[in-house]
């Protein structure tokens, strides 16, 4: 059930927030509570709220539909490479 959600979210983010590293995981075994990490330099100089907004805007339709909740972590490439998680 909902097994395509992870793939769909992954593709959406890779498409809309490029270039980026995207990791999507399932938190609950039901594929509708997702753990997402996005690393991209589009986040540079933006507040956390602005960074999360960029991602949430891409996911809005999914969140109105099959995805119930997401746990989101946004990083610049530099932060990602330093291993900030």
């Amino acid at each position, binding site marked *: 059930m909902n097994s395509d959600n992870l793939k769909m979210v992954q593709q959406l983010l890779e498409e809309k927030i490029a270039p980026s590293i995207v990791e999507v995981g399932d938190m609950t075994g039901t594929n509708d509570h997702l753990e997402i990490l996005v690393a991209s330099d589009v986040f540079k100089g933006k507040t*956390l709220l602005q960074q999360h907004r960029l991602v949430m805007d891409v996911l809005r339709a999914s*969140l109105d539909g099959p995805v119930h909740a997401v746990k989101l972590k946004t990083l610049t490439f530099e932060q990602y490479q330093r291993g900030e998680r």
Partner: protein
Amino acid sequence: MNPFNVIQPSANEIKEADKSKPLPEQIKALLGAENVVLFMKGNTEFPQCGFSANTSGILKQLNVPFKTFNILNDPEIRQGLKEFSQWPTYPQLYVNGELVGGNDIVTEMYKNGELQALLKS
């Protein structure tokens, strides 16, 4: 009313929006009810979602006065605030009427001290 909703009100909870007013004014009034307002599922005593539980737990620990509003009790506010803030999920934390973020942002700001700084100012 949801017959399965047996949760008891909590002391810092805004019980209901003023339904005699148009929706934008209801939202404005809720945002102005306190400097720190958390829109969540459930309340601080009986959170109805893990994310809401975590955010309200952080606020409780910081010892600042805050009010909560249970969006599960009010579908109109639940949808209207999402559109107002252009933010698709709950909880949503507001300080001085401005959206700070959801649970992930609040947790990260709590860990790095930004939340404490924001709430003291």
